């Protein structure tokens, strides 16, 4: 296969707006004693394992509680087995919903270690189990009690709804969960506007609140076991507290502290724009190169949406910069943002940072606007790490931030390559990859770009012997 146009990027002086050229040390070009940005917080890699330990132990305890609440006499009674199955399904299903909440609560130490994109994937993967168990709970309990009372299932269901107020609330909760689930199935998701889907999804909180009463009041494992009841209540209260803290309080406080406003919007390449924001105390914003924020621009038509964008450079107090591809209505609107517009941010998030590596040599591979986190990471990688950068674009003009990338790589003695041309002629496959980086199997490989680009690259890297644990990527298609 031929590469239509491959050239080694030549250096140029670093041109980040408003600042003198940076030294190799990523920080230190500020104009005052407080102008060095804080280094990003280091993730503790065992936090993911700790989280799994807690989740697993809790699940075992839940199953144990269900089992010990049963008795041989109860199981032998009419409907006993069905009711026992229904209790297990209800308790386990509710527990899984608690775990799902924890996964999307964006808890700082967990998010840094795992990455928001992976946490959301786990959330999606647990969801059918949670919903399936809760549905089984509704069905089995109804059938079991119907058998025990020797009535029909529908009549039993009606009895539940009409004579137990807590159960009526729980039934409403179940209905809400079904609606949320149906709208989240992939086919439905793609037909709905993101904002519509998101508003419906919020009803999960209401469903959980409605269902809580019947768990506490009639849960079989809790009758005569005030300790178990207390632990369950505390677990839910703690989860609610974490969600409120990390999804509301922390982001609001951070935005209030930094008061970001648009400084200017600058074109980098056809259809690609850098948005430079000015803020207060930006030196206290601890960001690792490669991390992203959820950006909410408080302008007409944009304020009700939050979009994830990486910083395309480490913060240079008082400025931060993101570089986006201005496609679609949202992108075009961002292009037209006026200086002075306020910006709310949530973050920094992301595990796509130099902390993820386990070797001292890296290969950074990006396509199009996916080069932005790579560009930021180049500033953040420790001095001794050897760097090879490969950037893919359909034309030379589309190589976003190429001068900055080339300068950063040259100054640290690394190598930067550009693979340029349309897909048909500029094939970037395993052979090309091996040619650029002969020792790829010994490096940490970071890949960033659209899914159609990253998946083949990851497959190539695996084929060339890179262990899966050393391939890092961020995938936002969810």
């Amino acid at each position: 296969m031929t590469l239509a146009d491959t050239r080694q990027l030549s250096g140029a002086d670093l041109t980040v707006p408003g600042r003198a050229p940076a030294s190799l040390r990523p920080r230190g070009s500020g104009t005052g004693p407080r102008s060095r940005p804080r280094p990003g917080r280091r993730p503790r890699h065992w936090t993911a394992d700790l989280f799994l330990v807690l989740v697993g132990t809790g699940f075992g305890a839940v199953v144990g509680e269900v089992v010990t609440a049963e008795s041989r006499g109860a199981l032998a009674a009419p409907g006993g087995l069905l009711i026992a199955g229904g209790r297990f399904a209800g308790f386990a299903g509710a527990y899984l919903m608690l775990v799902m909440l924890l996964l999307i609560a964006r808890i700082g130490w967990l998010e840094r270690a795992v990455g928001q994109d992976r946490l959301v994937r786990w959330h999606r993967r647990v969801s059918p189990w949670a919903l399936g168990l809760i549905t089984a709970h509704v069905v089995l309990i109804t059938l079991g009690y119907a058998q025990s009372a020797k009535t029909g299932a529908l009549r039993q269901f009606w009895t539940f709804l009409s004579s137990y107020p807590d159960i009526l609330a729980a039934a409403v909760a179940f209905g809400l969960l079904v609606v949320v689930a149906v709208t989240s199935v992939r086919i439905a998701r793609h037909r709905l506007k993101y904002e519509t889907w998101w508003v419906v999804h919020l009803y999960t909180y209401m469903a959980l609140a409605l269902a809580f009463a019947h768990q506490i009041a009639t849960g079989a494992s809790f009758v005569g076991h005030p300790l178990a009841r207390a632990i369950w209540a505390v677990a839910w209260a703690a989860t609610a507290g974490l969600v409120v803290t990390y999804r509301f309080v922390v982001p609001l406080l951070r935005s209030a502290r930094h008061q970001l406003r648009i400084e200017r919007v600058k074109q980098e390449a056809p259809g690609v724009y850098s948005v430079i924001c000015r803020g207060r105390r930006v030196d206290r914003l601890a960001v690792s190169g490669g991390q992203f924020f959820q950006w909410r621009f408080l302008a007409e038509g944009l304020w009700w949406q939050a979009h994830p964008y990486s910083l395309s450079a480490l913060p240079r107090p008082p400025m931060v910069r993101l570089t986006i591809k201005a496609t679609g209505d949202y992108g075009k609107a961002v292009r037209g943002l006026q200086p002075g517009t306020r910006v709310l941010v949530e973050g920094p998030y992301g595990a796509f940072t130099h902390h993820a590596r386990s070797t001292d040599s890296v290969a950074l591979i990006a396509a199009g606007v996916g080069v932005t986190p790579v560009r930021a990471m180049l500033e953040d990688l420790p001095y001794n790490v050897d760097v090879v950068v490969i950037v893919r674009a359909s034309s030379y003009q589309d190589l976003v931030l190429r001068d900055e990338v080339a300068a950063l790589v040259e100054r640290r003695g690394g190598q930067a390559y550009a693979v340029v041309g349309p897909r048909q002629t500029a094939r970037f496959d395993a052979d090309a990859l091996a040619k650029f980086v002969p020792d790829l199997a010994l490096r940490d490989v970071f890949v960033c770009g659209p899914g159609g680009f990253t998946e083949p690259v990851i497959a190539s890297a695996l084929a060339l012997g890179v262990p899966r644990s050393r391939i890092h990527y961020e995938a936002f298609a969810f």
Partner: protein
Amino acid sequence: MKRAGIVAVTSMVGFAGVLSFHAKAAPLGFGVRVVAPGAGQTGPTTTTAPSPATSAPSAASSQARTATGAAVNYNYGVLSVSATVQGTKLTNVTIASIDDAGNFRSESIDQQAVPVLEQEALQAQSANIQGVSGASYTSAGFEDSLQSALTQLGFR
């Protein structure tokens, strides 16, 4: 796969932990329940399903003794259990009184649970019975009151 392993192992640990906790706690019984002070019945009483007749003294060596346990508040009402012992055998267990304040749901549950509880007690020959699914409170109250009756009789 490592992640799945962690979850599986810790689940088993959690499960075993809860089981061993309950095994230790079992001798203490079901948990906290409110027992109405003193023996005897309170308020209007409604006896439920036909109760087996108190057995008349049969064997020459032993005489049937009957006692009624303390009235127990089982969360939906008050009940008391009457037990008859002859020699070393528990020969009869009946609900002496049960008052669920006219709650029709409670009544229907109790109507089905009570005969099962009485049967379980006779089979177990003690107040250590399994209880009835869906009638956790009634079962717990039944146990308490029966134990109180057995203690009065000096049985076990």
